[in-house]
Each structure stands twice: as structure tokens, then as C-alpha cells.
């Protein structure tokens, strides 16, 4: 009787402890009995990455974040990644930290530097090397949605101030052409907003369209960038006739592209919410352009502003590249 009771109580207590301990470890995502590869990442900022988040490689979860700590001196953050099994990473492996979805879960993706060469990775100081074969990777945190729109807005404002400064150089003919381009843009953005309103109805099956659309958007941005470069160059040389010629080319390109996009994006929803805000900003630019204030003199003397705008466009381009690579990430983000 007594022994039976002891046995019973003992086994229930043991069972409880086993469930608590192994349950906790399992929920943390720890695998039992298999080897782990430890990799460290150094970067400036980890966003909302937290311990236990997934580590992915080519989109496949291969481990989890083991620890996050600020480096001594506070110059960087060190992330410990625990990869399941044996891993030998490529020489130019880097880690990109990004939101996995809107719901607070972030992830660390191991990629190669050559795949995303333009990201501004944290450069590991020489003294940070670790003994014992533990690799230290450079890390980069992708801006999330809020930063993306902020950047787009900044681009828009800079472009606006840029255009402010050369509007007076145009004659009647260019004004007409630009007006025409503006009309196209307005029509385009209206379409985008309509589509965004309908997004929830057509949520599924749009990934491919997103793929197409994002490449279109990227080419628009490419064009815009090219134009800005040309404008910049022209302003530097002071050749106003060339500006006029080039503006004609740009507006023609823009209207063509926008037509393409609206065709490609009939069933597009999520991504375009993002794009919509960008183009809304562009719309504002053209509105200002149309109203005809600003001064060419200021533009010519302030080439710094032009180059800053150009840099921002480049950053936007990087984001678009990511958008093209991982459309699902942004589709999900834009539901809300």
C-alpha cells in the first residue's frame, strides 16, 4: 500500500517534470540528440529579432536564434545562431535580418554577399574573430514596411524639390507633354488605389502577378533613377536645351511604363498598396511641377540635393530587389 503510493506519487511527479522540461525545450525549437553548428552574426541593429526566431537558408528553416547580446563597447549586436546539424557556410556568407510576417516574428536568413551586393553589411572588425571554428558573419537588417514608405516619401520630396527648381526652364511644348504624363500618372495611381480597395477579394493566386508587377515597378524606378542621373549631369553642364529633350524622353517612357503596369496588375493587390503610396508621392511631385513654382537657379547651385535624391532612389531599388525575391513576405505584410 505504502510502496504503491510512493511509486504512484513518484511517477506522476517525474512525468510532470519531464513534460515541463522537454516541453519547454521542444517549444523553444531545440532538437534533441543531434549536433548543432554555432554561427555568430555581428550587426548594427537587430530590429525585433528575438531569441528562438527561425534561421533560414534559401527559404528553408535550418535553425534558430540562440542568443542576442550587445557587443562590448556597444558598437554592434552579436547574434548567436544555432543551426541543426553540420553546416559549412560559403566564404561570402552573410546574414540578412528581416520580418518574416506582420505578426512579430522575424527571421535571420543566411545568404551570400554576391547575391545581394548592395546591402550595407556591418564590417566585422579584425579583433572580433572567435577561436574554435565559430564563424562570424556580417549582418544587415532589411528595413520593414514603415521604413520603406518613409524612404519612398523622402524620395518623393527630394524629387519634388528637384523639379521645383527646373520647371521655369521649360517652354509651352514641354509643359504640355508633362501635363500629358501627369494625366497618365493620375489615371495609373487611381487604378492602383481601386485595386488596393479590392485586394481582399483577390488575395489568393496573385504571387505571379506580383512578380511581374514588381519587375515593372522596378523598371519604372530604374527609369526614374536614370532620368535623375541625366538631369544631374545636365544641370552640372548647364545645357538647358538638353534638359528639355531629355524630359520629353522621360515623360514618354513614364507614360508607356505606367500603361504596362496597369495592364499587368489587373489582379494585383497587396504589393500595390505599397507601390500605391510611392506613386501617390510621385503624384504629389507632378502636381507641384504643374503648379509652376520653384527656381532653376537654386537647382543649379545645389547639386548635393540631387545626389542625395539619387542615393535614396538607389535604396528604394534595393528594396524592390528584395520585393522581387521574396514577394510573399510583402504580400502578407500588406494585408493590414
Amino acid at each position: 500500500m505504502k510502496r504503491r503510493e510512493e511509486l504512484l506519487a513518484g511517477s506522476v511527479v517525474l512525468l510532470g517534470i519531464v513534460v515541463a522540461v522537454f516541453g519547454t525545450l521542444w517549444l523553444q525549437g531545440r532538437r534533441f540528440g543531434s549536433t548543432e553548428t554555432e554561427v555568430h552574426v555581428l550587426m548594427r541593429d537587430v530590429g525585433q529579432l528575438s531569441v528562438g526566431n527561425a534561421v533560414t537558408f534559401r527559404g528553408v528553416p535550418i535553425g534558430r536564434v540562440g542568443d542576442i547580446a550587445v557587443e562590448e563597447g556597444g558598437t554592434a549586436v552579436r547574434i548567436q545562431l544555432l543551426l541543426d546539424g553540420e553546416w559549412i557556410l560559403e566564404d561570402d556568407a552573410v546574414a540578412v535580418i528581416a520580418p518574416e510576417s506582420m505578426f512579430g516574428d522575424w527571421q535571420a536568413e543566411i545568404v551570400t554577399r554576391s547575391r545581394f551586393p548592395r546591402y550595407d553589411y556591418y564590417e566585422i572588425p579584425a579583433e572580433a574573430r572567435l577561436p574554435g571554428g565559430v564563424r562570424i558573419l556580417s549582418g544587415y537588417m532589411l528595413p520593414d514596411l514603415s521604413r520603406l514608405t518613409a524612404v519612398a516619401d523622402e524620395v518623393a520630396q527630394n524629387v519634388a524639390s528637384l523639379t521645383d527648381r527646373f520647371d521655369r526652364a521649360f517652354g509651352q511644348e514641354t509643359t504640355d507633354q508633362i501635363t500629358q504624363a501627369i494625366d497618365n500618372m493620375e489615371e495609373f495611381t487611381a487604378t492602383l488605389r481601386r485595386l488596393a480597395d479590392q485586394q481582399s477579394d483577390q488575395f489568393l493566386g496573385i504571387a505571379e502577378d506580383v512578380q511581374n508587377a514588381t519587375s515593372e515597378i522596378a523598371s519604372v524606378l530604374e527609369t526614374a533613377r536614370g532620368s535623375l542621373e541625366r538631369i544631374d549631369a545636365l544641370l552640372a553642364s548647364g545645357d538647358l536645351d538638353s534638359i528639355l529633350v531629355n524630359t520629353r524622353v522621360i515623360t514618354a517612357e513614364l507614360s508607356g511604363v505606367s500603361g504596362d503596369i496597369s495592364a499587368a496588375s489587373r489582379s494585383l493587390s497587396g504589393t500595390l498598396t505599397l507601390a500605391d503610396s510611392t506613386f501617390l508621392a510621385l503624384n504629389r511631385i507632378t502636381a507641384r511641377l504643374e503648379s509652376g513654382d520653384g527656381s532653376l537657379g537654386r537647382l543649379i547651385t545645389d547639386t548635393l540635393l540631387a545626389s542625395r535624391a539619387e542615393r535614396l532612389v538607389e535604396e528604394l531599388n534595393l528594396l524592390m530587389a528584395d520585393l522581387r525575391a521574396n514577394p510573399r513576405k510583402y504580400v502578407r505584410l500588406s494585408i493590414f
Partner: protein
Amino acid sequence: MPTSVLTPVEYIGRWSINSVRSLGKAGYLTTGALRALRNVEIWGPRLVSQMVSVGVASVPIALFIAVFTGIVLALQASYTLTGAVPMYLVGAMVGKSMILELGPVLTGLALAGRVGASTAAEVGTMRVTEQIDALETLAYDPLAYLVVPRVLAGVFMFPVVIVLASAIGILTGWSASLTLLDMSSAEFVRGLRLFFQPWDVGFAVIKSLSFGLIVTSVGSFYGFHAKGGAGGVGVATTRAVVVSSMLILVLDAFWAVVLL
């Protein structure tokens, strides 16, 4: 002064005096029980059988509750998350609410009924049939013999029972998601792990410890101070269940404020 004016005042006065008196008795019992902890030779041999009756015997009812809680949680989570919200959040909701709240509190309330009532009834019956006096005349400290093993068993076993209940609740929530919601295991587990933090388990265990302490000591308190015959035991039992249930909810809020 007319009595109609005085009556509520008297009532408040009597209520205050009784509250203070109860607090005093509770404090006396607590210090007595703490002192009785020395008498290991009295409570030691009784601990295992109390662990069985407080803990092991409570496992079936706790698991029964957990099974249905898990299923309901999964279904209600999916009902709430209609539309474009990803289904894997069902796993997060089941896991988080089972570990942090429903596992400890629902099980605690069920055990307040089971353990609190049986403690108060047993101790109360021993009080009104002079068995507690008999213990004293046989040189046993009744607190060491009756209260300490029960309270210790509660403190040890409540976390165990609650851990098992939470685990079962999550498992049934999982299987309900697979069978009734057309989710995949991978989706559920992803959600389950998404917001999980090891501290959640510690929080649940601390909560459970305190629930075990409260339920068994409140039951012992009312049993110990039972008066009269069967009626007195009945009153003690009812009070034990009501008061320990209320204290569980108060403690639940307290820990949420202090620890989260």
C-alpha cells in the same frame, strides 16, 4: 440615536471585527504551521499519501478539463481568425493561453473544488469529532500532522498537475486543429513556437505553486475552525471552496501584475 441608523454601522463594525479576527486566526495558523515544519517525523510519513490524494487523484479531473479546453480554444481561435489572418496563429493562441492562463486557472479552480472541499471536510470532521483533540493528547501537533503535509503536497503537486493539464490541452488543441480545422501539424507547431518563451513555463509554475498553497491552506483553515456538527463541516467546506476560488482569481491578477 434610532436603531435604524445604527444598524448598518453596527453591521460594518461587526464585519470589521470578524475580518480582523479571521486574519488573526489565519496568521496564528500560518505561524503554527511554519513552526510545525520542524516536526518532520510527524508530517514526513504523511506527505506521500497526501501527494497521492491531493495530486495524483486530481490528475483525471484536471486532464478532463484540459482536453475540452484545448479543443474549444483551437476552434474559437480559428473562429476569431477568419479572413486573411494566417491560421498558424491558432497554434500561438492555444499554446499561449493554455500555458499562461487557462491551464493554471481552470485547473486551479477545479482543484479548489476537489482538494479544497475534501481538505476542509476531512479536517473539519476531525475537528468536530474531537479527533484533532485526540491527536494532541497523543502528543501529535495537529498542524504538523494534518496541515503541513496537505499544504506541502499542494505546493508540490499543483504545478505537476497543471503542467500535465496544460500539455494535454495543447495536444488536444493541436489534434482538433488537424482534424477539425484542416491545419497542418507544421502550421500549428509554427504558431505554437512563435511567441513561446521559456519564462512562460516558469510563470505558470509559480502561479500553480501559489494556487496549491492557497487551496490547501484555506481548506485546512476552515476545517480547523469548523464548529458544531455536520452543519459546521458543511459551512467550512463551502467557505473553503468559495474563498480559495476567489483567492485564485485575485492571485492570478496579482502575478500578472507582478511577473509579466
